[in-house]
């Protein structure tokens, strides 16, 4: 994204709209400028229509900068990861896909959210920490697809320096390894320059009880009273 300085009138209305904190008033002139390092290419500045002079202009995004837009804008289709945006269907279609099964615990780690953004270097730190704890990364996930091998948690070298609004690390392990993963996340939290939100997924038993809940309670792990519930209306693709 760039600001056309011939159009910009320096009104500063756009500054608070920037999700990456990348827009500022130029020091030497009455114009707004975008810090390219901070800009996550979310396009909110342009799409929101906040500029009275329509001064925001999209610029061609080439690899690897294009991943910024992939993981910061909403719901566009991107060739970089061969999937739609930063999202993943994780547990939302588990009744159809059987992605997470009894005896397993799934994790989602939203890196950079809420509201802080992240570099892939920090995403990699978290991914490598949980890889060491023995998790399997979900293949059908755009973040996994930027890893070197989908196993070690290492990312392709050319994307590590890119900043994004957020991405989702998605992985699973056996129930008995739940605390190993939680402890790995707690440990790496002190080593990153961002915020991350952790989700923990459990397939319910036939009677509706939630196996992982008992494990979290027993270990004294905090969880919020609000979460997500797949209510089981999806028709399975195949028996599982």
């Amino acid at each position, binding site marked *: 994204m760039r600001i056309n300085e011939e159009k910009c009138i320096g009104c500063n209305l756009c500054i*608070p*709209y*920037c*999700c990456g904190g990348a827009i500022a008033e130029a020091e030497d002139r009455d114009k707004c400028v975008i810090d390219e390092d901070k800009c996550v290419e*979310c396009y*909110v500045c342009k*799409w*929101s*229509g906040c500029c009275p002079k329509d001064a925001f202009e999209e610029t061609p995004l080439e690899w690897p900068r294009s991943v910024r837009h992939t993981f910061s804008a*909403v*719901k*566009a289709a991107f060739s970089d990861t061969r999937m739609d945006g930063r999202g*993943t*269907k*994780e*547990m*939302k*279609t*588990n*009744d*159809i896909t059987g992605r997470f099964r009894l005896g397993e615990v799934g994790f*989602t780690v*939203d890196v950079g*959210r*809420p*509201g*802080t953004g992240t570099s892939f270097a920090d995403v990699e730190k978290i991914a490598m920490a949980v890889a060491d704890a023995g998790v399997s990364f979900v293949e059908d996930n755009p973040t996994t697809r930027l890893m070197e091998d989908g196993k070690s948690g290492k990312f392709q070298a050319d994307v590590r320096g890119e900043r994004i609004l957020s991405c*989702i690390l998605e992985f699973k392990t056996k129930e008995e390894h739940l605390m190993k993963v939680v402890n790995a*996340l*707690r440990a790496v*939290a002190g080593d*990153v*320059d*961002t*915020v*991350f*939100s*952790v*989700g*923990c997924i*459990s397939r*319910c038993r036939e009677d*509706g009880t*939630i196996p*992982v*809940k008992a494990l*979290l309670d027993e270990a004294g792990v905090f*969880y*919020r*009273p*609000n*979460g*997500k*519930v*797949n*209510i*089981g*209306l*999806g*028709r399975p693709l195949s028996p599982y």
Partner: protein
Amino acid sequence: MTHSLHRQGSEESLKRDYVVLAMGTGAGAMAAQKAQLSRRFPGLYKAGKAVYKILRGLRPGRSKKPAKKAAKKGSDIPGSVVFDSREDLCDHLKKLKDADTGRSVVVSGLIDEVNACLREIGLRPHTVQFSLGLFGRTERLPEKDVLEMTTMCGHDMIAPKLAAKWADDVRKGKIPKEKAADNMARLCQCGIFNKTRALEILDTMQGEIG
């Protein structure tokens, strides 16, 4: 996406915040299901008490009111809907159950309340996702009230500085709180921003609870 998982707020406040997502696993299957549902349940998604309905476009080329357009055609199923009461949530889930679309339906909200609702309509949870909270440099997060509003947009499209500015504008009488809530809702492209809660939070920020 996990984005509706980490909505912040007190349990009391979250009693008025339920997001329902409906989705399939492929465009072809979804289109077939939509056509089938259109014939069987033409009125299912036209009415209701949803706080806010599906996609509102910020991107070029997207209609600003696709939900309204789709409702006229009677052919669309909302991908996302927000309710501000458990009763309305239960009514909607009952309709979805009866429709038997084969699509996955996920509810974000207070887990105990959602499960109670499922029991009432004869369903059981299939899979549950807990939020274990926020880790890392949490000192960088905005103040609590602002965070409660910005996390209602799952994709983080509402910059904390902007939400804080609009809250300040309300406090100073520059804009009505409804305008501030509308502004924030417009930035949430998935339409899962709950304006009822936003108004309550803006009231709280002004010290006008009640």
